[in-house]
């Protein structure tokens, strides 16, 4: 058999696919079962949810970084198939990454929880997969639960998504029931990749990570041509050239192979210094014989949410900087630059895809890098049109020009799709109205579930909207949003004053109509977390010179220890040391000591308020 023919036979036996699902519908568990069943990983060696390899991912049960695995499956037809399973991130913040990894596939397994049915992200992900023209194979999971209703869920999939679900495998990923049906469906229903090895190289970057020894490891899907060690390649968007140092596949750990050919999924390394040089969505081609047109769909991801990150008391600026640099090497969507705050000193203004992305970076700084950090109120990017006609994009409230210099301001608006059970529609409409949402339309998915389509200012979404949504729907509500554009808005800068001194780290830009509410909320929250001082501490919220809310932390009335018995000075000393240490962990603003948690407390949703 000739080389080419052998390869085509091999190409026919490749299946590139993703698993997509709403959060908690069992995506990672199914991936684990597939890995186990194809013998790639023994049960004993497997950490629960192998593909989610960050601790935070495992704890939150979501996937942030993609994982890709090549497995070999011996099908009932007696042939061996190569499965390239491309895992996708499971959150709205990472939609673009999801769409690129789907672009690397021919098909997708759509997991739907047999007890929950179709949910917001089921829809959003299915649409993404349809946009990429993928063959969608519905899989109904959790059939072992007594509340499972597979027939109804099948009907939902057909009615809502318009996807044939009659033959959908009914499985329990957790219990390992009917996993083989899934594997057979992959073989039979997902098409083999097309593409020609003789044409110029055309490969899609769908993810990357930074390795200390090899540089950036690029996850790629080859559409046309061949790539091997020593090839000169070119990134078509970033226009940078490299020489390939290694090609390989994930089996599941990176394993070098001599080449990757059309239809293959694997990785390349090429001494690339940071992930921003190998952007997700970019097309790799040969430097000498480049392809004419790049693959469609490339876009540079832009941060939507910003906040300040500062070293906490006792933490070094340099340590935070090093950690942020390390994170950035691995995360092209994360940006930062130095800034200073009068309250917090030297720190960084950081940009994120969304709130979850922000929380994840914060958590990684704290856990992986063991850093003490303070985060300021998140902000979106406002467009400020000045009286002289100049336009400024502002993401730090402190940089807002003075009122006299501003002609008008615009704020980002998102299209939000909120899926809720029928009974909570009233609650959510109320919530959205509170958050300045404008309802576009409302869709009944079935007798029980409704999708509400709202246009909503992003700055109303980033504080605590998601928490409020969850709380008001007993966890059943789900949210998906996309940037729509900018709209003119009456915005003001809300300042918080402690003991009559403004603390810039608490400043935020809010809609005029929300200033009073926000100001009161922050003052009340701060009153709860700021300990009593030897003097009364006024907490005020102001817009310009006008005070719009005030609370007072009453002074300490009694802080005196009476008995010291039998000369046990050490006990008293320990108490005083504890008191002092407590203060050390606080931020000092003038004479006022503010605990670190105050910065997050003012952002948290509070059901009582």
């Amino acid at each position, binding site marked *: 058999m000739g080389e080419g023919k052998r390869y085509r036979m091999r190409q026919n036996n490749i299946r590139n696919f993703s698993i997509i699902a709403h959060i908690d519908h069992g995506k990672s568990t199914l991936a684990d079962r597939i890995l186990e069943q194809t013998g790639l990983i023994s049960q004993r060696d497997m950490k629960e949810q192998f593909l989610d390899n960050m601790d935070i991912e495992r704890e939150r049960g979501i996937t942030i970084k993609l994982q890709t695995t090549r497995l070999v499956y011996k099908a009932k037809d007696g042939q061996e198939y190569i499965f390239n399973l491309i895992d996708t991130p499971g959150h709205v913040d990472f939609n673009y990454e999801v769409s690129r990894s789907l672009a690397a596939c021919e098909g997708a397994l759509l997991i739907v929880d047999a007890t929950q049915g179709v949910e917001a992200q089921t829809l959003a992900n299915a649409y993404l997969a349809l946009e990429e023209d993928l063959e969608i194979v519905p899989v109904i999971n959790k059939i072992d639960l007594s509340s499972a209703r597979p027939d109804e869920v099948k009907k939902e999939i057909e009615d809502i998504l318009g996807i044939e679900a009659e033959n959908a495998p009914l499985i329990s990923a957790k219990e390992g029931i009917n996993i083989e049906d899934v594997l057979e469906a992959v073989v039979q229903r997902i098409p083999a990749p097309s593409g020609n090895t003789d044409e110029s190289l055309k490969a899609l970057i769908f993810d990357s990570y930074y390795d200390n020894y090899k540089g950036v490891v690029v996850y790629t899907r080859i559409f046309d041509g061949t790539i091997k060690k020593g090839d000169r390649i070119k990134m078509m968007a970033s226009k940078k050239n490299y020489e390939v140092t290694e090609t390989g596949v994930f089996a599941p750990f990176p394993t070098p192979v001599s080449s990757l050919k059309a239809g293959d999924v694997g990785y390349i390394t090429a001494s690339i210094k940071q992930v921003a040089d190998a952007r997700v969505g970019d097309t790799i081609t040969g430097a000498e014989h480049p392809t004419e047109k790049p693959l469609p769909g490339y876009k540079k991801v832009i941060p939507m949410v910003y906040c300040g990150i500062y070293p906490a008391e006792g933490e070094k600026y340099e340590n935070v900087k090093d950690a942020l640099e390390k994170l950035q090497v691995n995360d092209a969507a994360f940006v930062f630059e130095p800034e200073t705050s009068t309250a917090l000193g030297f720190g960084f203004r950081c940009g994120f895809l969304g709130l979850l992305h922000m929380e994840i970076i914060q958590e990684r700084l704290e856990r992986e890098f063991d850093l003490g950090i303070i985060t300021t109120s998140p902000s979106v990017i406002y467009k400020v049109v000045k009286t002289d006609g100049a336009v400024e994009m502002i993401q730090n409230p402190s940089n807002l020009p003075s009122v006299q210099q501003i002609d008008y301001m615009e704020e980002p608006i998102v299209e939000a799709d909120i899926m809720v059970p029928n009974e909570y529609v009233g609650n959510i409409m109320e919530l959205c109205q509170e958050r300045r949402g404008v309802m576009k339309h409302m869709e009944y998915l079935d007798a029980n579930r409704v999708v509400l389509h709202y246009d909503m200012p992003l700055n109303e979404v980033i504080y605590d909207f998601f928490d409020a949504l969850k709380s008001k729907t007993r966890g059943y509500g789900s949210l998906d949003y996309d940037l729509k554009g900018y709209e003119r808005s009456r915005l003001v800068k809300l300042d918080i004053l402690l003991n009559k001194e403004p603390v810039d780290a608490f400043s935020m830009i809010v809609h005029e109509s929300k200033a009073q509410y926000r100001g009161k909320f922050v003052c009340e929250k701060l009153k709860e977390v700021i300990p009593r001082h*030897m003097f009364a501490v006024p907490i005020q919220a102001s817009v310009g010179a006008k005070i719009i809310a005030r609370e007072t932390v009453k002074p300490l*009335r009694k802080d*005196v220890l009476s008995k010291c018995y039998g000369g046990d000075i050490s006990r008293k000393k320990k108490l005083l040391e504890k008191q*002092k240490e407590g203060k*050390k962990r606080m931020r000092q603003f003038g004479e006022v000591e503010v605990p670190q948690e105050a910065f997050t407390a003012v952002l948290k949703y509070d059901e009582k308020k």
Partner: protein
Amino acid sequence: MKPLGLYVHFPFCIKKCHYCDFLSFEKISYEIIADYCNAVIKEIEKRKQDLNDYTVDTIFLGGGTPSLIPEESLEKIIVSIYNNFHIANDIEFTIESNPKTLSKEKLDFFLSSGINRISMGVQALDDTLLNFIGRVHSVQDFYKNYYEAREAGFRNINTDLIFAIPNQSMKKWQDTMEGIIELKPEHISFYSLKYEEGTPFYERYSSGEWTENDEEDRNMYWHAVNKLRRKGYIHYEISNAAVPGYECRHNLKYWSMEEYLGIGLGAHSYLRNLRFSNERDLNKYIQNANNMEDNRIWIYQNKIKDDISEFIFTGLRKRKGICLNDFNERFKGSIEQFFPKEIDNLLSGNWIEIKENQMMLTDRGVDVSNSIMSKFIIL
């Protein structure tokens, strides 16, 4: 010869009070008490050799309830102290006692043993309150013992009082103060009730049965201070007042970074720049002592920063405060050099004052003294 305070701990009570978290046991057999007293003597003998250059000028028998100790055991201990240490002629020798555990004979014995000061835990002149906080004695028991002590010849008596007890009205506290001052004790201690972890009162407090009323607490405190001042007592320490000349010299050592040796279960010492404390397990303590083994479980060599912090925070417990010349001499620098910002803020806030080379808390500073003291802690 250097002066030394000697503390001996007796961890036994008839019954633990509901608020008490001191190291003390109730319902203990006389055999164990006798064993314990022998162990104490062993510890005294063991310490003897490193104390040749010291003269003991204060002794404090504390507890627990030292007045419970059988005469025979107590005598052996006192004899052992006299035999093993140099004793100053003008010694202040205190025994703590609880009403109902005293008798004319016992008081005579105390005096004849050299004990010249007696401290009585009366706590309140109200039987309902005494019962409520778990005391075993009545107001009447106290009066009887108090007069007996006077008759026996005690010229230096302290009474311990507690205020801010749940359901204790201001009126009741005023009555207690009035009644005590009428007796003209030389010394009065007054402590506000604290809910200490591990006590029955703490359980009730944390279950929400009572809340702390800081306002009432401070009102009661200042009522006592003002009344005592009017009656000629010197408010010489946050929780203590005395007729001039009767300040407790032993307790003042604690607040003045002077040396003291603690003997007995869980006792604390400050000696030759070391702070150390003893075993807290009764059986282990007795066993170790019998084997002539060291009973210290914690020894810490004070660093300069510890000395500075302790000198200030203990010194501020005294109303006349700390002597700034002493500070300069001890630490080769002024307190303002060490704590410029703190002193400045505290002075301008009228939390502390400096006069005639003494730095002290103001009255309003007393109420938040922990906050003030913690500013002088060097971590």
